[in-house]
């Protein structure tokens, strides 16, 4: 029991509950079904991104190129499908964008694995390269008439709620994609040797090598997987927004990384869970969407999220420090 109470997940969950109660008591709109659905809806794209970022951070790396990859994939896919006036299913859009994302992710992996460059530098570079290529060669103008399959997909809701004042909130089908990604990743990290290898690399790379993990293969998997997820997230983003904009995802990477770190993943690698990431993400989304309900100006959101990150990571660091001191003291006797 004590173990559960001292986990990072518990701490974040506690903050979420306290915050919800405060917001809910000031503004009763917060606890309405409509608002909760809106919260979920705004978390879908960020959620898929966050899962990818989690894997990278657990392995001891960092990826800031995923929004650029997503923008590239969704915009190029939309443009290509429009060009051929494609009338078929949205599945083709997902396959196309996913494959593109996979390739771009593998390009990241190549630099990281073969040239042994720091992951931050590589992904900073490729992020700029991917979005530059997109804007220079593919296009800059927003596309608002989506291919038929994608427009149809945009209207696929699994739940619709109308509030008293007539505002309709709908939960989009793509929440199921997020749920699938979450479950697959959770199983992967917890129950496969590949997943444990990702933790092992993040814990001690040299030890992982000596134990017989194939570091190159694992890194190709990690960055390829992130690329694939980014491609999928890109299409989800486009359909939810009902347009394809080559730049409006850029800049989201920092808030996603912040959510993952807030959820207990250590930037130094080796630590982090799917549950923690979801909680961290949820906290950030509540901040983003609900401070307005409290009457807090939107400029303050950035400030508050920044403070939360410092408190969140600070609390973890403090606990680690204390437990190592405890260890030292126990060895006295």
């Amino acid at each position, binding site marked *: 029991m004590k173990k559960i109470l001292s986990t990072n997940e518990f701490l974040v969950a506690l903050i979420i509950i306290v915050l919800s109660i405060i917001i809910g008591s000031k503004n009763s709109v917060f606890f309405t079904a409509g608002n909760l659905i809106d919260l979920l809806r705004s978390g879908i794209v960020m959620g898929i991104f966050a899962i990818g970022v989690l894997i990278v951070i657990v392995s001891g790396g960092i990826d800031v190129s995923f929004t650029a990859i997503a923008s590239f994939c969704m915009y190029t896919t939309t443009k290509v499908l429009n060009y051929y006036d494609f009338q078929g299913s949205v599945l083709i859009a997902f396959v196309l964008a996913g494959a593109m994302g996979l390739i771009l992710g593998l390009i990241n992996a190549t630099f990281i694995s073969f040239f042994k460059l720091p992951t931050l530098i590589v992904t900073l570079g490729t992020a700029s390269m991917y979005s530059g290529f997109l804007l220079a060669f593919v296009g800059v103008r927003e596309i608002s008439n989506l291919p038929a399959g994608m427009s149809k997909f945009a209207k696929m809701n699994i739940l619709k709620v109308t509030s008293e004042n007539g505002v309709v909130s709908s939960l989009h089908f793509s929440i199921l994609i997020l749920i699938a990604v979450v479950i697959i990743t959770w199983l992967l990290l917890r*129950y496969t*040797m590949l997943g*444990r290898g990702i*933790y*092992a690399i993040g814990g*001690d790379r*040299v*030890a992982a090598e000596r134990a017989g993990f194939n570091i190159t293969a694992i890194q190709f998997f990690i960055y390829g997987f992130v690329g694939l997820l980014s491609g999928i997230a890109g299409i989800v983003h486009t359909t939810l927004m009902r347009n394809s904009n080559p730049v409006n995802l850029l800049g989201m990477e920092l808030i996603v990384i912040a959510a993952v770190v807030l959820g207990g993943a250590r930037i130094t690698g080796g630590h982090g869970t799917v549950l923690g990431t979801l909680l961290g993400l949820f906290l950030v989304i509540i901040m983003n969407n609900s401070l307005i309900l409290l009457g807090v100006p939107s400029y303050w959101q950035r400030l508050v999220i920044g403070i939360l990150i410092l408190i969140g990571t600070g609390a973890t660091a403090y606990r680690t420090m204390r437990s190592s001191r405890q260890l030292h003291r126990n060895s*006295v006797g």
Partner: protein
Amino acid sequence: MMQEHLIKVTNVSKSFAGVQALKNIDLTIKRGEIRCLAGENGCGKSTLIKIISGAHVPDEGDIEINGKHYKRLHPIEAIREGIQVIYQDFSIFPNLTAAENIALNSELAKNRRFVNWKRVKSIAKEAIRKIDVNIDLDAKVENLSVADKQLIAISRALLQNAKLIIMDEPTTALTQKEVNALFKVVKSLQQKGISILFVSHKLDEVFDLAEKITILRNGQNVIDGDTSQFDKEKFVYYMTGRKISESHYELQQESNQCLLKVEKLSQKGSFYDISFDLYSGEILGITGLLGSGRTELAMALFGLNPADSGRIYVEDRLTEIKTVQDAIKNRIAYVPEDRLTEGLFLQQSIGRNIIISTVEKLLNKYKLIDSEKMNIQINHWVKELNIATPSTHLPVQALSGGNQQRVVLAKWLATNPKILILNGPTVGVDIGSKTDIHQIIRELAQQGVGVIVISDDIPELLHNCNRILIMRKGRIVGEFGGKSITEKELAHQLSAT
């Protein structure tokens, strides 16, 4: 028919970029034998280990394991033949639980794709039962002690069906109690027919444990024999190639210049009511188990973690030491326990490391570093302390442990200290360098410096200190003259509760 010997290395040589690291080495290890491999840093010990474990390919020679001959041995073949290396860093994952750490490698070797947590737990339970120890299997390894981490590494090796376990200086970070526990485990492994190759240059350990000793020097096998054929002098002679005599340090003359007087110094949770004097020319030993407060006391005296209460007099003047700057102003120098993380800038050059604490004295009138002055200073200390290096521009991490320690010493001696506090001055340093460092310490004391040596190396204390204070649970519990106590008594005092 099983051969009596498990592994037979014949005529193995290896060179790196023209430097001969090993030359015509022969080594035979029998089943269930505990063999010590000794030698100073750079003698080729680690190269030999790497050849046996398949990490390096020998230029010539033959390796025979379990009757099979190998010209070149792949790491995976070595593992399949039952050869396991326990590295100094244990090669474990701090972020995973003890159970997973124990089971992971063997599960990986079995090519499993999925993790069954029940199986992991039961494998780990079985593994620690085999060596009869108790570890919290659900704890994250980063929260465990060094000794526990080592036991995890050992039980992990056993799971891979180990026939030969190579331990690379396994006792470096252990307390005496933990060393004893480790030896018990090693002996129980022997009973199970597992051979141990124990790399160490600590005499007492080697004589305690090993049946046979192999000593390497400059890449050559200088002697091979039963432990009973060796005595201390012979062992040291073969390792260093020179005769090293052990003598006690004695005060030249009683000095009445009290350099440091500590009164009732306390720090909550670390040490209490510490009082002692340090006179000019003295080498004062402070010893105690890990966690006895010895390191915290040293850090308090150097202002790294100031004491809560008590008084410190430097040369009879009441002095406040709240920061490192205070300590340096009072000409106190501190050589920390862990030179790698606290004492050196590993990637920086030897020269820069030497001048770092005195860089202000090397400025010219434009407040820039005077390179001529700097080079004079660097060359002076390289010569003075016999730092063996082809160039002072090399990064410090390229040096051996002994030479690194000399660089740390040089850095502080350059500040011309009156009081020198050395914490574990010869940890991880080979015997030759150790003797040299002791010599340096003695000379400093003879020049009037007051030296405090914090150490749990009992012979080191006995031979070099004219007085020894024993700390237990944060308090000074005894004071002895260096000559008035035997090794046994001191060891007993240390571990008494």
